[in-house]
Every structure is written in C-alpha cells, then in structure tokens.
C-alpha cells in the first residue's frame, strides 16, 4: 500500500524516464524507490538508486539536454511530475526554491567525488598488483 496519494503509480520495472529523451519536467519521488541506469555496449549499468522525497530529472532541464540516464521503478513507486514551465516561473519569483535542488546536487557531487577517490584507489592497487605479478613472473 502506497504511503502517498499524489503523483503517478509506476509498477515494478516500469520506465519513468528513458536515456536520450528530451526532458520537459522534473520528478519528485513520493513513495518507493527508483534506479538510474545506463546502457554501455548492450550491458546495463546501475548507477544509483533514489527514494522518497528525492528530486531527479533536473539536469536535463537546467542544461537543456537529453536525459542522461534511464530511470526505472524498483518495486512500485509513486512519482510526481513538476512541469518545467511552473518550475521556471516559480524560481524566477522565488530563487530559494532552488535551494533543495542545490543541496541534492551537492550531495550527489560529494558522493561522486567519494566514488572517484575509491575507484582511483582500486585502480592503483590493481596496477600495483599487476606490476608485482609481472615482476614475479
């Protein structure tokens, strides 16, 4: 049973946003979880997940570009659309509306930086491993 009454209900596995589409709205998750994925050479890569109250889809609106990833419901999820027109009109009158978005985005940048550091460390140890294996051999 969903804890929210607003937005649209997506079934498990249903696509909310497709990578490459033109975006004219952003989304706020009311209830449930979604996953972000991209396709690389025919294989699916899950980038991250998001849950209740999280906003997504803002990148395509700010950068006027196509959707950077596919978003899919993981389990049933209720999602509210925010129209670009309403959003832009409001943000013009009330720039503080962007504050939550900035918090979300800076949170993501922090997560990504953390991941980059981790990946670099892994890469280094892999290289070191490969190097020592080579020396041994």
């Amino acid at each position: 049973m969903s804890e929210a009454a607003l937005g649209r209900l997506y079934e498990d596995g249903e696509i909310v946003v497709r990578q490459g589409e033109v975006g004219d709205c952003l989304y706020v998750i009311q209830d449930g979880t979604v996953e972000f994925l991209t396709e690389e050479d025919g294989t699916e890569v899950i980038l991250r997940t998001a849950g209740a109250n999280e906003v997504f889809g803002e990148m395509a609106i700010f950068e006027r570009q196509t959707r950077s990833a596919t978003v899919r419901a993981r389990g049933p999820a209720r999602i509210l659309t925010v129209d670009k027109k309403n959003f832009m009109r409001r943000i013009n009158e009330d720039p503080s509306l962007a504050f939550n978005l900035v918090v979300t985005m800076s949170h993501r940048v922090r997560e990504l930086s953390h991941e980059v550091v981790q990946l670099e460390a892994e890469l280094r140890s892999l290289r070191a491993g490969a190097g020592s294996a080579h020396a041994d051999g």
Partner: protein
Amino acid sequence: MATAHTPTAESQSSAGDAALVDGSRVAVIGGGPAGALFAHFLLQMAERVDLEIGVDIYEPRLFAKPGPVGCNMCGGIISESLVQNLALDGVRLPKDVVQRGIDSYVLHMDVGSVRIATPNEEMRIGAVHRGGGPRDVTEANWESFDQHLIEMATDSGAKIIPARVDAVTRDDGRLVLQVRDGEPQTYDLVVVATGVNTSILKTFEGLGIGYERPQVTKTLIREYFLGQDVINETLGTSMHVFLLNIPRLEFAALIPKGDYVTMCLLGDEIDNALGDAFAAAPEVRAVMPADWDPEVKSCQCLPHINVRGVEKPYAERLLFIGDSGVTRLYKDGIGAAYRTAKAAARVAIFEGVSEDAFREHYLPVCRSITSDNRVGRYAFLLTQLAQRLRFVRRIILYVAAAEQATPRRRPRMSSILWDMFSGSAPYSDIFMRMFHPVLIVRAALAFPATLLSRTPRSTPGAHAAISTKENR
C-alpha cells in the same frame, strides 16, 4: 505603555535598517497555512544563515478537533502548482493528509459535461480536510492539512501559543501583542496571518499604518458523508465544477475527499436557499448517488472569502500574509498563502524588517498577484457570460470535445478550462490564450454545428482527455 520585560534583541531601531539578529523574537498571528508556512520557512532560512531567532505562533484553533473549533473553512483543494512547489520545497503531503488524489475536472453544464484529465492519469491535485472534519466525526481517520503544516512548523522550532490575540499596539517602534489573561509580549517582527474570518483586522486599521481590511464576500460550504466506496463509484477522482444558470450562483464545485464530499458555492448574497437550489439541480443529482438526501449534511458554514486584497500589506516590523493581505481571486488561496508566506520569510531574513525593505521586496510579490487578479476578473466575466448564454456553453462543450476527437490537435479550450478551474496558471496567461486566433476560429467554426446540437464523441484516456455526455 507597561510591558513585561521580554528580552528583545539589540537591533538597530532607526527606520530603514531594522533587521532580525540573533535573539530576535517573531510573532505570527494565526497558524493557518500562511502562518504555519511562514514560520517553517523563516526558521529554515534562519538556520541556513546561522541566525538564531524565536518564533511564536498564536493560534486558538485545534486543527485535530472535528467541527468548527478545528477548521479553517475551505474547499480543500491543493492546486497543481502548489503540490509541485511544496514537493520541491521538501514539504511532503502524505496519504493521511491528502484524502484523495485528483486527476481530472469535470465541467457540468445544462448542455452536457466535459471531463478534462491530466496526462498519464497522474494525481496532480490534492483534496484535503482543513480541520479534524465535519461535526459528525468522532474520530478522524486522517490528519488535517492545517495540523500537518503546524506540526511541520513546530518541528522547525516554532512555539505554539494556543491563544487568540486580542490587541496589537506599538511601543517604541516595536509591536506588543496582548492575549486575554496574559502578559503583553514585545516582538521585533509581527506577521499577521489571521485570514479574513476574524474581527482582529479592525485593530490594524486603528494603528494608523495605512492598512485597510480586504474586501470579502460570503460563501457557502457543506459537507456530506457518502462513504469511500460510494464516492469511488460516483464522483471518483475528479473535482466537479458547475456552470449553471441559477440566479445569484456564480460558481459551484463538488470536491470528493475520503468519505466526504465538500460542496462549495460562490455567488451574490449566498444563503441556504441558494445551496438548496443548487443541490436540487439535475446536473448535481446526476453526479451524486441516487439516494442522496441534500438535507442530511454533516456540516455547513458561511465563511468569507477575500475578493480584493489590501493595498499596503506591510508597515515597520509588521507584515500581512495570506488572506489577511493579498490572495488570488477565487482560486488557489492556499497557493497564494504559500507564495506570500515564503516571500515574507525571505525578505525578513535577507532584506530586513523595515517598512522600506517590505515596500521594495515584499510588495512586488503582492502586486504581481493583485495585477493578475485584475485580469482574472475579466476571465471570470467571460465564464459568467457562458453561464448566461446557452450557445456559448454549447461552443465550449463542442470545441473541447472536438479537440479530443483529434488527439494531435493542441487542446486549447481544454487547457484553458483546466487552468481556470485548477487555478494552476496565472490569469494573465489564461486570458491571453482565450483570445488565441486558433481558438477563436475553432469557436466560430463550431457555432453552426452547435445549432445542430451535435457533439463530437471523444476517446478516453488520451492527453487532456475530454469525455462528453449530453445531459437531458
């Protein structure tokens, strides 16, 4: 004047640069949507800039209690744009607050009905109870909207003082509030969010600050218990609006909640008789269950609605937000309360609390609402025209249905109807679209067809779906 010594912060008292500083005290008179949202946003913004202030909300109502003691009488529609803005602001409206998600409007006229739906069957509008519910509720199985917001404000750090403010006076530039049996309290900023259904607004006219009360008109609200299952089968997830040629009636709506239906009427010298006349109309009987008895109501009230906002909703260290200041004409009053509340919070934190700061930064937001209302008046004149003239109603019905029959056609009429009823776009925007050449051509072409009284059939489920049915 003798006031109890309350520690107000040392802030500059010279006019023009008054500002909130650490330790400042803010009073909010009224904890309806305007007051609660203001307190929440003010404290949230203060925290962001590391400012420590105290906020007291004076509110005598208990929003969790059934009946008039807990209710700020209204239709309880949370507009499409407000739903979206609150979501972006991180204000969640859970299921026990939103009693029903609304995905469509049905316009009922003597010539037929038109259904206008949101794309993708999305619940874009919320129907809420403002209080603990109609008189006959013993224990509400929901949380009222006003209760939800006031809890959010207390979570943000606001303190609720469960009392009615009886008097407001000035003392050395600051404002002093008086409640019965209480010590006078001095504040650095007082925000009036009392709505229009209160006598206290007269006090402010006596302060010599150029404040004149908003103009109001009486409305009628009734609540009917139908039960969830019956509502699902009858009114469903649509708000039903009526354009009927009943004398004195301007606008009427039936709004489905969980177990209840709210009837809202606007018009001239609204009274019970007008309510009865509306309830007896065949268009109304057609959407309500067959055994519905309009006499058996759970609650009824005749609240005022603000139809002309105040010219000067501010003075030194004093602001009027929500209905007690400026609101949108007839529609989305809570959305306007949100806009003015948030603007007030922003200005108080970032621009100061002087009269100059308010004039420069708060007034423009109020003005934009007021000037849009001016256009709104003309838009409503046109709907009144439709109400009086049968052929105009036929054209509306015909064009909307024809748009539907051709899904690739831009739904111009339906989007106008949607925005007019849902209150989700500025009136100026809607008004411009009313005179779009394409729409005028469509209407002109429809005219002969309406004389033959044929209405194109529509397909359900498409973008901005319109279904029409001829009422006998």
